[in-house]
């Protein structure tokens, strides 16, 4: 085939063979080999993670009948349990869903408040622009240690001190959330604008006035928004605590799942999903107002 000049210049002629895009394509490494190796590694890891899982087709044989049982349960929820507010003698029933849902939200909310109160001083220690480098390392270490313990383990320890019930759940959430809230608060303090502090310095303000008029107005919206975000997470976490009898919706969930009582189980699942959706909506609306 004749070479057709693509572009005429006085000194340089680019032909089709030398067109930059094609040359680029020829020169690029053989990507398919990398992709093949990557795919093989991923498949191997997935297969490896399934060892000892006793995976076979008979495990999946139950899926369809189970699904029908579940749908049947959702169609006939235990309404007495789902809506029951009062006992036979007229006092508030503490074993039904309305009370337990409020208790779950209460565990998350008060837990977040407790965590925020404790996270504040640690955050000021951890923020590099407030405390020095060395003190900041100490604060960071405290926060990492707190964050590392899974909630369920904290609950196991605290339940022996504070007894069975929602108090232990609230304190577990409170203690566990210090780790993340402290870190987020410290980052907010570090990102603070120094301008207002210097301006107040220049007009001769004292320390309290500087904190009140320069630091708090800057960090408070961030703190509130982070607190709300953590509250969101904690509502989900508070459902777990019932597994170790630390209050909330988890305890009836575990009891109902032991005997696969689907009318009760479906009522609890409906309550959990509704609760999370409502809390999500409220907190995202509030956060949108803050920022």
């Amino acid at each position, binding site marked *: 085939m004749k070479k057709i000049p693509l572009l005429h210049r006085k000194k340089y002629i680019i032909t089709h063979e030398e067109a930059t895009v094609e040359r680029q394509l020829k020169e690029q490494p053989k990507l398919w080999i990398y992709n093949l190796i990557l795919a093989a590694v991923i498949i191997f890891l997935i297969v490896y993670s399934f060892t000892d899982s006793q995976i076979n087709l008979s495990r999946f044989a139950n*899926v369809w009948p189970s699904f029908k049982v579940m749908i049947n349960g959702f169609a006939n929820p235990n309404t007495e349990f789902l809506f029951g507010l009062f006992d036979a003698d007229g006092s508030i029933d503490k074993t039904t869903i309305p009370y337990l849902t409020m208790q779950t939200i209460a*565990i998350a909310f008060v837990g977040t408040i407790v965590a925020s109160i404790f996270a504040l001083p640690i955050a000021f220690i951890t923020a590099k622009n407030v405390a020095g480098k060395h003190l900041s390392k100490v604060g960071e270490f405290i926060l990492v240690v707190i964050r590392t313990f899974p909630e369920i383990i904290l609950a196991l320890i605290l339940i022996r001190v504070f007894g069975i019930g929602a108090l232990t759940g609230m304190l577990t959430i409170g203690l566990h959330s210090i780790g993340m809230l402290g870190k987020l608060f410290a980052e907010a303090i570090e990102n603070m604008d120094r301008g207002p502090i210097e301006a107040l310095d220049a007009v001769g303000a004292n320390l309290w006035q500087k904190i009140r008029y320069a630091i708090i107005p800057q960090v408070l919206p961030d703190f509130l928004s982070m607190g709300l975000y953590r509250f969101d997470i904690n509502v989900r*976490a508070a459902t777990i605590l019932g597994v170790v009898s630390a209050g909330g919706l988890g305890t009836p969930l575990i009891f109902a799942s032991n005997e696969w009582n689907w009318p009760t189980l479906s009522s609890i699942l409906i309550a959990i999903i509704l609760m999370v959706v409502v809390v999500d909506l409220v907190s995202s609306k509030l956060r949108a107002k803050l920022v």
Partner: protein
Amino acid sequence: MAKMYTLSNGKVVTEPGNKSIIYLVIVLAITSFFMLFIPIDWKAINFRNAGFILGQLFTPTSGQTYRDYFAFIVSTPVLNALLETIRLSFGGTLIGALASVPLAVLSARNIVKKPWIYQTARAIMNFIRTIPMFVIAVVAIFFLGYGILPGIAAIAIFTFGIMTKMVYETIETIDMGPVEALDACGANKVKAVGYAVFPQVLPIYLGYFIYCFEINVRSSVILGFIGAGGIGIILYNNVGYRYDRVGGVILLLFVVVVFIQSITRYVRGKLQ
């Protein structure tokens, strides 16, 4: 009553009221309302127990030495359970992360222009994200029976939800230049996403993957409590009578989580 000031130019300004008191009162009111649902039984609280239980957790039981204490931590059943925890977290995270890619692309407003598609995709994602992982695990046990299979399924579904959200938010922040360039060359949507979107998102995606893995190792402890595999079963079996073993497992988990966290931090630092 708010203070009024007369400025030198004759203007009268009022000092803005201090709203922080009002906010504080509101927060206190909500907190005390919620405290109604948290009964405090002062007789049940036993602070002396705090020191006692720490002693029980982190020292050998009577008649045993620290040698026995640490021998239990590195005994085969415990290490096998630990390996199982890591394996099921990793497998679940991997499956969930891979499965999240198509839904994340469908949820991104800058890639999919039709509102009904990305709104449906986001609705699916938001629904999955509302369900706590442990609840997914309970339902998965009902479908698949006990063992690590429902554990992997629960972690995969949970990871699928949060990865989809994080990845689609990342896709929406990418530079659309390369996508438009490929569009202009006549590439179809799939090719445009593969060659222009994925390379931009990949490092961040890997970062999220590692982050999810770290979260999942920690939260998978709960799975053993309900029979979905992992090291939680050893905690569950020993709570109530062998607190030294519980403490040993806590120490082991602490070391493993710190180790994974430092790897995570190292890799994420490299990726950015």
